[in-house]
């Protein structure tokens, strides 16, 4: 009898250990949770590919299959790149030209998951990336989210958001040949108001489709994605740079009753801050250049601090900027512009996941979230900081050659 009890208890323990035994413990000088807070002297405990505990400095971490303890190391969640065209083959980064609105096109179908761009994102600390269809169509298609796992990126959400562009993107190169009269071959729209009119048509139709008895004028495949957007099942992700375009996006969604949307690529969000606050729209700030021909307008590095103070939900994204800055550089610039270090890290991790609607699963180092993490040689807000280790789903996927020597 006693033997049987011991056996049961032993079995129970074995089961518990198998489920809960941490596979990895990382001891850090500081841990950025990714929600704006930091913990000094923390240990990150990972089990089953998830964060199983974050322990303060007075709690001894459990023993694990591997323990990483690097002098001065600072841990953050893996970075989340909210707007990218990585892996899109030449041509696929453009748009389907059949129509101005192509909501049935999926970015995922144009992505080369083995593209070296994913590896180079991973080396800059990005573990999750949202890939958008092109900017040449008014509605370009549906974006997807992938993790930057080595060898081939892993899709985690096939259809993340409907990608719509307000502004000059879709009008580019649409003017008539050599300044002549527009003909039936001239691609439209050619103005910003034309772009918005096209969006309004699409959205109002989508709203109509959700009414009983509505006859679709347009192909089923277009209508379906739009109808899902109208029901809030597929958020709409706008690209709107200027204040006027931001306001147009808010107006359109109010008119058509689009319940879930966000605005990205903005460089004038500060001018529309009251409207963004009132509409409770999350914002992705554009590439924070403070140079250019119109510096009074161009996304200034103090914008994140001022949006944060105003209570607007925001995140930073590199967008299609390929001038050599990394996503972390944006956070560093925001920090230099006065944003608190913890919130600057959050702007490229937890906040970015929230703006993209991925926050249920990743973006912070909270218990139960995917164990996507980065270990930096010193606080990542310092421009001298180097990525030492990166992990996705609890598995170490990248290690700096200088870090492996010091591995315990």
């Amino acid at each position, binding site marked *: 009898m006693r033997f049987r009890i011991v056996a049961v208890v032993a079995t129970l323990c074995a089961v518990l250990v198998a489920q809960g035994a941490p596979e990895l413990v990382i001891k850090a000088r500081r841990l950025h949770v990714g929600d704006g807070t930091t913990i000094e002297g923390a240990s990150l405990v990972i089990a089953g590919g998830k964060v199983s505990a974050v322990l303060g400095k007075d709690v001894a971490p459990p023993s694990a299959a591997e323990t990483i303890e690097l002098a001065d190391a600072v841990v953050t969640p893996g970075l989340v790149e909210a707007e990218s065209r990585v892996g899109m083959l030449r041509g696929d980064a453009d748009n389907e030209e059949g129509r101005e609105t192509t909501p049935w096109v999926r970015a995922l179908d144009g992505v080369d998951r083995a593209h*070296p761009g994913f*590896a*180079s994102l991973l*080396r800059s600390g990005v573990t999750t990336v949202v890939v958008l269809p092109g900017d040449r169509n008014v509605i370009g298609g549906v974006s997807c989210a992938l993790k930057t796992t080595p060898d081939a990126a892993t899709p985690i959400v096939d259809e993340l958001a409907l990608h719509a562009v307000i502004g000059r993107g879709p009008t580019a190169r649409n003017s008539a040949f050599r300044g002549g009269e527009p003909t039936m071959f001239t691609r439209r729209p050619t103005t910003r108001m034309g772009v918005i009119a096209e969006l309004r048509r699409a959205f109002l139709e989508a709203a109509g489709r959700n009414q009983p008895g509505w006859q679709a004028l347009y192909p089923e495949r277009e209508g379906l994605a739009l109808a899902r957007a109208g029901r809030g099942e597929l958020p709409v992700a706008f690209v709107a740079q200027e204040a006027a375009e931001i306001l147009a996006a808010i107006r359109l969604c109010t008119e058509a009753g689009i319940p879930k949307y966000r605005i990205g690529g903005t460089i004038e969000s500060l001018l529309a801050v009251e409207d963004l606050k009132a509409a409770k729209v999350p914002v992705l700030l554009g*590439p*924070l*250049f*403070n*140079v*250019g*021909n119109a*510096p*009074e307008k161009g996304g*200034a*590095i*103090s914008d994140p*601090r*001022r949006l944060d103070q105003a209570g607007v939900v925001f995140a930073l994204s590199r967008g299609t*900027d390929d*001038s*050599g*800055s*990394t996503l972390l*550089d*944006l956070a*560093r*610039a925001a*920090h*230099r*512009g*006065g944003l608190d270090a913890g919130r600057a890290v959050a702007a490229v991790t937890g906040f970015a996941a929230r703006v993209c609607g991925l926050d249920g699963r990743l973006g912070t180092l909270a218990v139960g979230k995917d164990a996507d993490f980065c270990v930096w040689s010193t606080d990542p*807000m*310092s*421009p*001298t*900081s*180097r990525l030492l280790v990166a992990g996705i789903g609890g598995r170490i996927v990248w290690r700096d050659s*200088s870090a492996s020597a010091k591995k315990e």
Partner: protein
Amino acid sequence: MRIPRPFIAFAFLAAFVSAQDLLVRNARLVPVAGPDVAKTDVLIRDGRIAAIGEGLKADLSIPVIDAAGRTVMPAYVLAGTTEGLDRANENMEITPYVSVLDAIDPTRPFFDDSVRDGVYTIHVMPGSRTVIGGAGRVIRPVGRVVEDMTIVPDPSVTFSMVPPQGNRATQMAKLRGALDDAKRYLENKEAAADTRPSGSVKLDLERLAIERRRETMARLLKKQMTAFTYCSEPGDVVRALALAKEYGYQQRLVLGPGTWKAVDLLAAEKQPVIVSPEMETEETDPDTGKPVRRELPAILHAKGVPFALTARPTSLGQRYLWYQAASVVRMGVPRDVALRAVTLTAAESIGLGKTKGSIETGKDGDLLVLSDDPLSGRSWVDVGVIEGKVVYERRTDRRMVEVLGLGDGKN
């Protein structure tokens, strides 16, 4: 209302007047030439650094900046850029007769930003999409016209080993052709100097016209100018070194990251090199197919090659020299070497090692009062000084105060 940009700069710059006196007190000093000093004063007299030390005494007439809690370092030196020009290159390939003198536009935002960012010695050159690009100029970002801005009038001529069209062989042939022409011209000119004037007005005019076009190359061969030669591949370095030796001209190499394989050759030269803003390259290992990162500054440092860093104004981070220096620290280069690369070594690479790039007695009083350590990533230029004269103050910078809300020093 938008005030035209030039006026923003000129409001506090006026014309660049003669040198002045200044005393900076209680600063944490990063002199670059030696170890950091926790607290000291720096005295500038007649535009030159006159004394460094604690508790310096100076006349009451000398303006004082209290830099307590702030860092003082030499102004940054940009060893090569094509910014400030309307266009970087002529569409012809061999244009040694053009000069950036005629292309620098003092109203460009680049100069405003350089004043704000503390880059007070700038070597502007024609671009590298060329064979021979023309004459460069070392300037300060302050002045109404180029003449006011000039520090060194014709220090350099741009060469490129990278063909804008054709292949490397044609590029070499074109370079040799131009150098041979210059050599012949110089020989003829010297021979002509020994003979009497032709007496024919037409002939003399022809000769004069030809001289104007050819003088840059002649001065290069007479070692009065230095070729700044752009190389993107290791083979370019080999050819550039051989060519300079063959024709006997002075040369500085401007290196793309792909030249890292030529590092042993560079080490033997014992000359400072200039690293282009793109400092690292990714190569695919032919055996494993895995990408390998090559960081040129780290490789140069390991072999003891002194290097200067440059900036790329279209990038969020790379537009700042402090950011470039911090990136090099991230690559494993010691902090003092990284700081020298944007100050003293940069000055040495353009022949100004004796006057610019460090805070030492006798050098020009070009210094910055920074809100924080230059590599902290949070540092702003609070006060900028050129030859003892205050050219920039953050609290009066309209862009920092009104546009960015960063003028109060509390952010």
